[in-house]
């Protein structure tokens, strides 16, 4: 008997809502349909009535996890248009903050993945490792999240020598802890059983769905905006872009851990080579009716900002293409063929800010009876699949 299982759309505790309508035949998912937009706040329209400096704050609030990358991408578009060159020190500070953000975002994600596969110890470890990174943000910018460090022409806060040595100490500790996480993800047989060979996205499909970030690199695509479209100080540091060919949930997990190792190396190099000098360039007028586009690498993948400037110091059009917008549709390819119990890990594996599993209504096609599952029940189902509790 085939039936439709809608997962979502709302869960008040999580920051993004989506609706996944899974058609299942027995336990197997045969079709997946997605509806987004439950959190559409009209940010692009709002931006048209704001000055450029206000827009920097607005775009920072697009996402609570990768809140740094949107203002970073936006100010670079404006700098291109107005020909404002951010000083070297500012470019290096931007790089350091962006990589710290990748570290905290990946660790947060790994914890959530651990939670849904019934491995709460991983959640505890991962978030414990993440905590000192948030302290660093508070130390440098005054905020644990929404750092508001990027301004047009540079950055707002400097990194003092004391803060620099604290950052170095923290990333040193994180690197040690990463070895433990790597060990789990590559050797622990229970974890491997939950992550291996589910939600496979082939390289061919990854290309067709234009996916980006760890989702693309987990399917063997060598793309990374930091290498391909260098910005900030990424040209001045050396790093690798890890790729894994397997395309399953495990590959997307493994690739993120390898990326964290690279992030730490970037932070250390950038702090070592931090140039002296000002952190903000002089302001110039932003000419109307010009356009610019920039891409940068958010923790989830390529982020694109497009601006057409308007009169009165306000944009005529701002377009933001965040990475999840292209990654989420690829789930329609990843989910079919696997079980409902695996769907939670598969959806989570692209890091769409895993929400929406609030309630699940199972509608039986033949008699129309409805059953409602709570989020907890679904997680329980996911854990029980392999004999967990």
């Amino acid at each position, binding site marked *: 008997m085939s039936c439709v299982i809608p997962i979502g759309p709302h869960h008040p505790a999580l920051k993004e809502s989506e609706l996944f309508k899974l058609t299942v035949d027995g336990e197997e998912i045969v079709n997946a349909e997605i509806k987004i*937009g439950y959190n559409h706040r009209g940010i692009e329209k709002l931006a048209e009535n704001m000055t450029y400096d206000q827009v920097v704050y607005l775009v920072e609030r697009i996402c609570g996890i990768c809140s740094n990358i949107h203002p970073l991408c936006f100010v670079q578009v404006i700098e291109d248009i107005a020909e*404002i060159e951010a000083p070297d020190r500012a470019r290096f500070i931007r790089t350091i903050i962006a990589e710290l953000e990748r570290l905290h975002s990946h660790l947060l994600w790994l914890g959530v993945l651990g939670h849904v596969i019934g491995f709460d110890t991983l959640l505890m470890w991962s978030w414990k490792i993440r905590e000192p990174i948030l302290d660093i943000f508070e130390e440098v910018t005054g905020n644990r999240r929404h750092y508001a460090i990027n301004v047009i022409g540079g950055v707002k806060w400097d990194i003092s020598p004391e803060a620099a040595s604290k950052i170095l100490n923290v990333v040193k500790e994180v690197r040690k802890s990463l070895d433990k996480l790597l060990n789990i993800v590559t050797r622990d047989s229970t974890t491997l059983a939950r992550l291996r060979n589910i939600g496979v996205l082939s390289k061919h499909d990854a290309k067709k769905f234009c996916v980006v970030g760890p989702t693309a690199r987990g399917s063997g695509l060598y793309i990374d905006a930091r290498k391909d479209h260098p910005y900030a100080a990424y040209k001045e540091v050396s790093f690798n872009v890890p790729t894994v060919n397997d395309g399953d949930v495990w590959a997307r997990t493994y690739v993120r851990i390898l990326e964290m190792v690279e992030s730490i190396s970037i932070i250390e190099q950038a702090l070592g080579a931090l140039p002296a000098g000002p952190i903000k360039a002089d302001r110039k007028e932003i000419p109307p009716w010009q356009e610019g*586009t920039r891409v940068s690498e958010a923790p989830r993948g390529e982020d694109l900002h497009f601006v057409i400037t308007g009169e009165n110091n306000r944009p005529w059009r701002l377009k933001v293409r965040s990475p999840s917008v292209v990654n989420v549709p690829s789930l329609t390819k990843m989910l079919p063929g696997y079980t409902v119990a695996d769907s939670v890990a598969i959806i989570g594996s692209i890091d769409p800010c895993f929400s929406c599993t609030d309630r699940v209504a199972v509608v039986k096609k033949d008699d129309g009876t409805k059953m409602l599952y709570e989020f907890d029940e679904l997680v329980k189902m996911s854990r029980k699949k392999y004999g967990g509790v």
Partner: protein
Amino acid sequence: MGEKTFEEVVIDFFKEKLGDKLKSYEVKPRIKSKGLVIVTVSSSTIKEAITSFLEKFSEQGAKLSTITGVDFGKNLGLVYHITVDGEGIVVNVKVNDLPRTSPEVETLSDVIPAAAFMEREVHDLFGIKFKDHPSLKKWVLVETWPEGVYPLRKDFKQEG
């Protein structure tokens, strides 16, 4: 004469492929980065322009990043953002000749599955139709959003 920059290669490609359907082109410098190529084409040729470009430069990692709707005042328009990852450039292929009443262009969704979702977003917010699109159901707006109201058009005024 030195070797051609990739920006020039891109422009030459469009010149040759589209002939007089290529309306204008320019390269905008970007700070400490390669240029941004902006080409404006006639809406009747957009599908050919995008698909032939992606095919020709697939080795260099060309991919369609997104589609942006724009209200140019007199007309509506679209910007197709292509990132050529292997070369580090962005190409904006622009269309600015869609009439405000019944704007329509060909869909790319049969060639690029990802475009189906991008086109649904533009359809929601600007009311631009994509000919032969399998399903222009609401994507970012709620299903109960009134028909014929397009929030990102300039004649839609914000309240409050």
